[in-house]
């Protein structure tokens, strides 16, 4: 018999290589600050246990730093590296004072002396009239109390905005998902040259869909001056009787999930159905390492028994204080459709890139196309792809931005009201359901037979559910389309032809 037995000796080679470094070593917790150099070891008598200590930071400069730690076993194995950020302050003075700084400029912080007795509570009043050094726009203000005796309060942060000197009307403009053409605005009443806490009321933002979004804001002062754009990530949530938000990172559902209940109208079940927005920066990711993670979230609404669809988005956990302030964009890549040949180049480092790309209609066939672009920053990390869809209009020969409109004129609705019409065409699925049993909202999930999700979309019931869902899948892919509403799940299968 032509049988080859794998040698256990050979099979074990890879594990042996781990053992080659297994010289006896002192077990403990190894740590270093900012970049790997001269790591220190806090010894541990046992292979496992808890270390509680204070690390000497006297050699560090004032400001933001990152602590890196990893466990080391006596046989030479390491744990992966875990990081946390912190602020190093100079030695405390004997006075009590309120320290504050803007954005990440902790080393340029200002201070106001506080006259406060031990054990006394006092309302803080921060006079920012001398905050003339930071520019027009939206900023993150951080504050802490440095009390006598070397005690510090936790750092409190808030968003503020500043107007330059001038006259006329000023507005706060905001938009979602980089769609500046749909920006909204409202007037702001700040004295010329003054600073004020940012209050953004988005309860009436009904034009953007539920889910995870990138919020951009800027101040337009006196009709002629614009601040830099400030971005944050937000989630728009539906309101129901016992609405709650559950979220977790990666696959860490059991240990890492957080539930925020009752923040969105619990106890006000008779209120009309409206939505609110939740700043993502308010979610607790403190247990996660900096870096790329997958955020999962699910919204439970209504009677509390509806387990909402689980959404998944990639996020970058930055941690609060370890943001690099000198990251700039240095190069780009762009390509059309699925062409493998990347085109792009490098350019002078800049914090904001505004690029124009010229496309010739003669170069493109009729139908749908996609323009992809991504940028690399000075930390050698690529951004996510920015995809702009456009199509060549068969009637005019012009290129138009957006998805080619789906022609649904020849699609007839099913006569079975408990089922739904489901047609794939041009990378989109047209869905139409007329059932009287639908709830106020629904969710459409498109997957393949293995459960890989191609699209999720929340839809509203407006005289039935009518939706067009973008699906990026392979040709001839068998797709499972689920329409979930009012606790019922309707399913259809189709092939992406």
């Amino acid at each position, binding site marked *: 018999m032509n049988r080859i037995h794998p040698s256990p000796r*050979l099979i074990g080679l890879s594990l042996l290589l781990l053992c080659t470094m297994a010289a006896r070593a002192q077990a403990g917790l190894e740590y270093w600050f900012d970049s790997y150099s001269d790591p220190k070891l806090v010894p541990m008598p046992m292979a496992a246990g808890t270390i509680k200590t204070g690390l000497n930071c006297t050699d560090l400069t004032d400001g933001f730093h990152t602590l890196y730690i990893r466990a080391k*076993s006596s046989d030479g194995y390491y744990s992966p590296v875990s990081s946390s950020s912190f602020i190093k302050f100079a030695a405390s003075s004997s006075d009590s004072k309120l320290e504050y700084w803007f954005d990440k400029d902790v080393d340029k912080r200002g201070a106001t002396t506080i006259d406060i007795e031990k054990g006394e509570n006092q309302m803080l009043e921060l006079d920012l009239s001398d905050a003339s050094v930071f520019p027009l726009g939206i900023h993150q203000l951080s504050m802490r109390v440095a009390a006598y*005796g070397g005690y510090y309060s936790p750092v409190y942060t808030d968003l503020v905005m500043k107007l330059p000197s001038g006259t006329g009307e000023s507005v706060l403009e905001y938009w979602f998902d980089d769609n500046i053409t749909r920006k909204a605005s409202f007037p702001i009443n700040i004295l010329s040259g003054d600073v004020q806490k940012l209050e953004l009321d988005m309860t009436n933002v009904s034009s953007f869909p539920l889910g995870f979004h990138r919020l951009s804001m800027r101040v337009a002062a006196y009709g002629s001056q614009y601040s830099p754009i400030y971005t944050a990530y937000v989630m728009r949530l539906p309101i129901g009787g016992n609405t709650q938000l559950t979220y977790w990172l990666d696959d860490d559902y059991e240990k890492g999930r957080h539930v925020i209940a009752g923040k969105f109208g619990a106890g006000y079940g008779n209120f009309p159905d409206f939505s609110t927005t939740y700043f993502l920066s308010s979610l607790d990711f403190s247990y996660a390492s900096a870096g790329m993670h*997958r955020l999962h979230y699910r919204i439970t609404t209504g009677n509390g028994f509806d387990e909402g669809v689980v959404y998944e988005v990639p996020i970058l956990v930055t941690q609060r204080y370890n943001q690099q302030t000198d990251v700039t964009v240095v190069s780009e890549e762009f390509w059309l459709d699925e062409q493998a040949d990347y085109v792009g180049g490098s350019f002078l480092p800049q914090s904001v890139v505004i690029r124009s790309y010229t496309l010739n209609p003669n170069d493109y066939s009729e139908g749908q196309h996609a323009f992809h672009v991504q940028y690399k920053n000075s930390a050698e990390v690529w951004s996510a792809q920015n995809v702009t869809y456009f199509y060549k209009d068969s009637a005019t020969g012009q290129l138009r931005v957006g998805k080619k409109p789906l022609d649904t004129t020849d699609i007839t609705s099913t006569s079975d009201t408990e089922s739904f019409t489901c047609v794939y065409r041009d990378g989109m699925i047209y869905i139409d359901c007329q059932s009287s049993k639908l709830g106020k909202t629904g969710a459409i999930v498109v997957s393949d037979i293995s459960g890989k999700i191609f699209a999720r979309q929340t839809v509203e019931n407006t005289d039935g559910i009518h939706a067009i869902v973008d699906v990026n899948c392979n040709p001839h892919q068998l797709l499972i389309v689920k329409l979930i509403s009012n606790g019922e799940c309707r399913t259809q299968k189709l092939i992406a032809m």
Partner: protein
Amino acid sequence: MKRNLLLAVAFLATFTVWAQNIAVVSPSNETTIYQTLDDAVAGATNGSVVYLPGGGFQIKGETKIDKRITLMGVSHRGDTDNVDGATVIAGNLNFVKGSSGSAVIGMYVSGNINLSEDSIDNIVVRHCNINSIQIKNSTCTGTYVNQCYLRNLSRFAGANGKLSNCICSAVVDVNGCDILNNIFLKSVEIDRYRSHALYADNSIITGNIIVATGHHNTYYTGAIPSAYVGGSNNTGSHNMTKGGEWGDNGVDIGGETDWNIVFEKYNQGSISLNSNFHLTGDYKQYDGKIGIYGGTGFTNEALAPIPRIVSKKVAEQTDGTGKLKIEVTVKAQ
């Protein structure tokens, strides 16, 4: 008339970039820190261990592993007590010439582990959740896959090795393998003639549970092999099947028996952490003997054999004496 369309793309560099730190420890115990997995693979030397913390890592398609390295994650499970969660790799791990003796331990891989057309020997994959193993050359030897989830069809291209204590969709075209204490859950179309959950030649097949049966269509002209194990010249014993026996001392649960009453939580055969493949009821007597909990066993936690940090409290700021207070709990594995 030539009409041009201007696509203006404004990209704001206000996003913050702070990648995880990947420590590469060389055989001489020197540590180098990298920010991306691609760079870590490129910077590793023969015999290095690449420590991947919890979190997500992308690997580019053009990144090839051409040296003997160990990729060491924490666990593919997010519900362990590791402080940073599971180690997740987005992409394929491509092993090419020079990578013999490499290992992949304790991680979720969205794509495949690919062994190229080169002859690559003694690759070890343990405690991982991967899409599949794709071996391109029958001369690859000694591939060892242990305690893994293989979510889709894996192909061995006639190569040998050892597959033990794994939860598999389907594994085909193995030749001269030890196939011990696995579960095969899906019958998958191998080519236009045949579908199987396990297709092997010249192999020892013992202690497995073969849930899905295969078939050949009318165009197949060769000798029709068993529905449980495709291929020829296989031997083995104590395999659990439904509606018939395969090998010596086989356990037939009966053609009418539903797998739901055989497993603690069959979960429609889903290759998922929510499934529980401990044997129960009348079949509990076989638990620890047949299936993934038999033989060398299966650890549900899927933890890599390294220390891990299970909790950490780091102060937001230094105290009045200039010290940073920390409290860190470490567990050994």
